[in-house]
């Protein structure tokens, strides 16, 4: 293919990415590499551009300059590239975004049957397999709004997994949950991490970052301030901005 690019062993490579919302610059020269099987946690104050960054990776937002490669394929305006990349990337949203008019099982099989052209029987079996994995097979025939927030988010994770992606993006997956449901979702994510999935997670759950991440990234004002493995990121932050941020969220 003409537009493939040698990204060494990085499955995602972002270089000097810039994005504006109108006059407002949300991302400034962002560079990021994610290797296969790596777990990257992105944190930072709200409005720092972390959600926008991961939404650029599957083009829910368009960037205006810079490059994004996923498995060597560049994300451009080319609809073939967009579709190919999206098939390979799952995404979990803060507000779940399950389809309320479809049952849990139908939510899970919509992508496999329409995009991957699977037989319904196979798609159903696949969906049940992932529902087992997130521990709610008994809810398969219910509608999303009949479930608790934690259950809905686990269904959303299963829905993404049904596309059997190589990469998973999490956009503040626990921010809309009641405290007692955060754990069940984090447990699911930890299990996923243990299975070797490449993950980029935007979250404020520092405990999760400490135990699961290979790399922690701090963003502020649309720029990456500091990147490092959790031990040095939490134990010995290099930048003043990182220290104030950690102070604020770890204090209580």
């Amino acid at each position, binding site marked *: 293919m003409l537009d493939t690019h040698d990204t060494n062993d990085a499955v995602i490579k972002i270089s000097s990415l810039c994005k504006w919302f109108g006059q407002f610059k949300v991302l400034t020269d962002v560079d990021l590499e994610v290797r296969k099987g790596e777990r990257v946690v992105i944190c930072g104050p709200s409005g720092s551009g972390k959600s926008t960054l991961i939404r650029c990776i*599957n*083009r*829910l937002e368009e960037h205006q300059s810079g490059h994004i490669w996923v498995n060597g394929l560049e994300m451009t305006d080319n609809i073939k590239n967009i*579709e190919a990349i*999206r*098939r390979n*990337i*799952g*995404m979990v*949203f803060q*507000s779940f*975004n*399950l*389809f*309320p*008019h479809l049952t849990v099982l139908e939510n899970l099989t*919509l*992508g496999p*049957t*329409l*995009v*991957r*052209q*699977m*037989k*319904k*029987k*196979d*798609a159903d079996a696949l969906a049940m397999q992932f529902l087992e994995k997130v521990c709610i097979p008994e809810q398969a025939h219910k*509608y*999303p*709004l*009949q479930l608790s927030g934690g259950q809905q988010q686990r269904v*959303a994770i299963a*829905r*993404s997994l049904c*596309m059997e992606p190589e990469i998973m993006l999490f956009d503040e997956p626990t921010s809309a949950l009641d405290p007692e449901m955060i754990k069940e979702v984090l447990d699911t994510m930890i299990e996923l991490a243990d299975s070797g999935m490449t993950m980029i997670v935007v979250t404020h759950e520092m405990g999760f970052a400490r135990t699961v991440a290979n790399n922690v990234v701090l963003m502020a004002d649309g720029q990456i301030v500091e990147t490092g493995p959790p031990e040095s990121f939490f134990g010995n932050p290099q930048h003043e901005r990182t220290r104030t941020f950690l102070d604020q969220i770890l204090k209580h």
Partner: protein
Amino acid sequence: MQDHYHAAPTGRNKPRSLHDLLYSKAIRTTFYQVLMAVAICALGLFLYNNVVDNLTRQNIATGFSFLGQVSNFEIGEKLIPYTPRSTYLNALMVGLVNTLVVSAAGIIIATVVGFMVGIARVSGNWMLERLALTYVEIVRNVPVILQAIFWIVVLRNLPPPKNAFVLGEFGFLTNRGLYFAAPASTPVHFWMWLALAFGIVACIIGTVAARRYREVTGRYVDMLLPGLALILGLPFLVWLVAGAPTEISYPVPKGFNYVGGVSISPEFTALLIGISMYASGFIAEIVRSGIQATPKGQVEAARAIALKPRFIMRYVILPQAMRVIVPPLTSQYVSLIKNSSIAVVVGYPDLVNIGNTMMNQTGQAVEAIAVMMIVYLGISLTASLVMNLFNRFVAIKER
């Protein structure tokens, strides 16, 4: 002990004195309702007696026996047999059929135009969005009666038949009506209509079969083209097999008018354009708001699993939008049916127009109005019922 917890203390709410009785909420509510019921009955009785008194004083017979009398007036446009020798009941039936025809045609046109304009309003195409907005604002904000008058004035100002506005040899636009060439009637047409009906049924079966096939094999079959081929191809095939009769009946000038082809009266056309454009503006807004009511996150989630735009529209947006669209759509249909009664200003012989004539000739105003009201009530309630059933079909179970 048990009683203390479970049995409600008896007699606590019962008024114990005259004072309690006067201020008891239950007694007051009942009292006002009884008062209201008595007032309504008294008013009804008074009106009824008044009407009966006045009618007997003026020697006007009451009752519906006049419906059997000979009408003695001609009706310009009729789809069922009728002459001035027919009864008033026949005349009303002609009016009813005319009302139903113009309403049905109006609903179809308003729905098609309304959905197209509504989708155009959110198409993302700047030009299309502005055009659609302009259309909506014009047709929604000009009174429907004025729009009907506008169209009848336009059509009445077409040239007279002898120097008609000519569209090749295929049509003549005149102030007496619009005349178009049409295939000459042959028995083949009956079989073609039958083939069309058969094609529609086959298309529905095909769509269901395609879905089964997708469920079993995983392969998506787009039924749009095969479906169209079935619906249009079958009648075409019948036409070919029947020897492809190509005879066309052209409208030709004869006397003061045209014969042959098909003709549409200016009155019908003006009324139809007026009521359907007016309703289409409202329907367009209903469709737009339905599509926009689908949360943005739904589309993002669908994009994130790589669904193609047409699948997103078909499986994610439309099912959710229809729930928002159908209930207000029902009231637009009902109001279009009722708006068809402005036929009287353009001279189209609908139910109200004929009812008016009947009322003037017989003087049976109360009965004539009652008949018209009951008929409109019946049509509107039927339309609502059908749409409510449809709504139950598209309404999606969520919990």
